[in-house]
């Protein structure tokens, strides 16, 4: 397919790769076009924290060089953006926080390094909830991101900048991270595809830590096909991450077309509790479509799943309070003015360097780990986590994948849920389970309610990313929800 420079932004990774390969397009041209587009929409969407135009153009020139020398791969010259939680040598890594507002990492995250080695060109760093703690992108020190489908609405979070940037066709793909739904929830709310791989599949080295037993890097793209191309480069064993898993990475693109005949799809009964009644028919229609392709649909129940949110709000804050103890105002990060003594330096640097939501979670984490409360909260939550994980394991004896909605509602208005943290937390009610059990999951667009996109979530057993991408791709072959672009961004 041939396109003019004016509509390059509408092409996906697979199409751009073909154009670069055929020589009808250079990476420098493509990079210039998308950088201009990012600049044009930055004020309106605030999807980026850093736009790295200079280094992007240099990388693009190198990619074109590689292509001339015949050493290019499928991703050589493809522009992408990184969530600002991934360390990038030479560009700021803020994690959406005042604490790291001026931090320049001395090294690249493994994810950044691998995509760079594959020839991908980084256009910038995307906005996010501070330290990835949030579901609306409103906790960013750099201001909220707007949803391209409706600027009065949130894009979701914490990877709100990545989701908005891909939805608005500013970049064809962006990296993201998911601790309780931070890839899938914004992907659903912005009408794009988001995959959270199995825990340990993608290296966490150089990814600023929030809750280390839940954090996992992944992608936001326009299609499952694009996600397959990028994940193949990102995933894999890394000796620098002690929880990285030593398993070979399959060729995800190779199994995309596999027929769905005989696929056993479980519909989670618990995922229809509290679901917006306008979203339910969209999920039912998606199930009917999978059924029409030969999948066998059956209802399953995970009795402990409704306890996911309370488990998460013990485990994640506990790990966060421990991980964020490193921000002491001494070695790097924000330091308060005129500290009286060392304790004052610690306490005021942290009080001013962290925003309200981060401090709230540090407080909860410190509370549940403190003497006298440890067993009642932390140990109990870890036990219930085991029960939830066991529920999933049993379900996967009966079915191949679990399907349901990604979020209970479509995108809500900015400010609608900031008054009460618990109301905000309940947004992740359908996504947290996969994190607790370490399972891979993907969200794909499945329709619209009042002009706002909704997401279909597919969860699978450990290390079955290829199957998830296959099901998502077959679904996207039969639907065009993922190809719809918000008005004003065509």
């Amino acid at each position, binding site marked *: 397919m041939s396109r003019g420079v004016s509509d390059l932004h509408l092409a996906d990774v697979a199409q751009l790769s073909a154009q670069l390969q055929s020589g009808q397009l250079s990476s420098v041209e493509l990079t210039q076009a998308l950088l201009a587009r990012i600049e044009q929409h930055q004020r309106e969407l605030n999807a980026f924290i850093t736009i790295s135009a200079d280094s992007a153009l240099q990388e693009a020139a190198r990619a074109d060089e590689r292509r001339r020398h015949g050493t290019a791969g499928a991703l050589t010259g493809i522009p992408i953006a990184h969530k600002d939680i991934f360390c990038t040598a030479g560009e700021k890594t803020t994690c959406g926080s005042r604490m790291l507002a001026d931090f320049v990492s001395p090294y690249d995250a493994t994810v950044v390094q691998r995509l760079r080695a594959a020839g991908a060109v980084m256009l910038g760093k995307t906005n996010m909830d501070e330290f990835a703690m949030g579901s609306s992108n409103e906790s960013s020190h750099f201001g909220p991101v707007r949803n391209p489908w409706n600027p009065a609405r949130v894009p979701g979070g914490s990877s709100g900048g990545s989701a908005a940037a891909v939805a608005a066709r500013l970049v064809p793909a962006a990296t993201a991270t998911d601790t309780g739904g931070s890839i899938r929830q914004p992907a659903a709310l912005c009408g794009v595809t988001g995959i959270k791989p199995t825990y340990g599949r993608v290296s966490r080295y150089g990814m600023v830590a929030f809750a280390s037993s839940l954090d996992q890097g992944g992608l936001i793209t326009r299609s499952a096909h694009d996600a397959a191309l990028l994940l193949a480069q990102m995933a894999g064993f890394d*000796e620098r991450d002690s929880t990285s*898993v030593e398993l070979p990475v399959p060729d995800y693109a190779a199994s995309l077309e596999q027929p769905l005949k005989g696929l056993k799809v479980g519909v989670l009964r618990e995922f229809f509790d509290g679901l917006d009644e306008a979203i339910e028919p969209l999920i039912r229609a998606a199930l009917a479509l999978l059924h029409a392709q030969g999948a066998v649909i059956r209802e399953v129940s995970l009795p402990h799943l409704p306890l996911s*949110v309370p488990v998460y709000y013990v485990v994640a804050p506990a790990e966060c309070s421990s991980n964020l103890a490193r921000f002491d105002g001494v070695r790097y990060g924000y330091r308060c003015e005129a500290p009286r*003594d060392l304790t004052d330096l610690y306490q005021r640097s942290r009080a001013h360097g962290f925003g309200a939501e981060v401090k709230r979670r540090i*407080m909860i984490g410190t509370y549940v780990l403190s003497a006298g409360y440890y067993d009642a909260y932390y140990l*109990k939550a870890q036990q219930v986590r085991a029960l939830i994980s066991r529920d999933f394991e049993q379900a996967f004896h009966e079915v191949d994948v679990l399907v349901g909605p990604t979020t209970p509602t479509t995108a809500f208005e900015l400010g609608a849920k900031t008054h009460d943290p618990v109301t905000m937390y309940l947004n992740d009610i359908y996504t947290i389970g996969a994190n607790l059990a370490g399972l891979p999951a993907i969200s794909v667009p499945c329709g619209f309610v009042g002009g706002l996109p909704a997401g279909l979530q597919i969860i699978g057993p450990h290390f079955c990313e290829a199957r998830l991408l296959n099901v998502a791709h077959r679904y996207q072959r039969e639907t065009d929800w993922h190809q719809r672009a918000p008005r004003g961004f065509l």
Partner: protein
Amino acid sequence: MSIEHSDVESIARLARLALTAEEIPQSAQELARILGMVEQLKRADTAGVTPMSHPLPGQRQRLRTDAVTETDQHELYQRNAPQVQAGLYLVPRVVE
């Protein structure tokens, strides 16, 4: 569920977070609200259940070989430090 102001003060001290007088009652209220939601965990029967701390069952902690793999790059690393002198991090005087 309610949280005493004195509890908030002691948690903040443990977490090394300075709180203003106005922030204490608000923080007490928010913590009570969140911990109230967490109380639902009591409903689950967890007798004899082994607590889960790693999401992949059977995964063992890998150890690297005890070998020098990093070179000294303190100047590079200290570029992000608020205050450095002669390769040392500066903090307010601790011992008089």
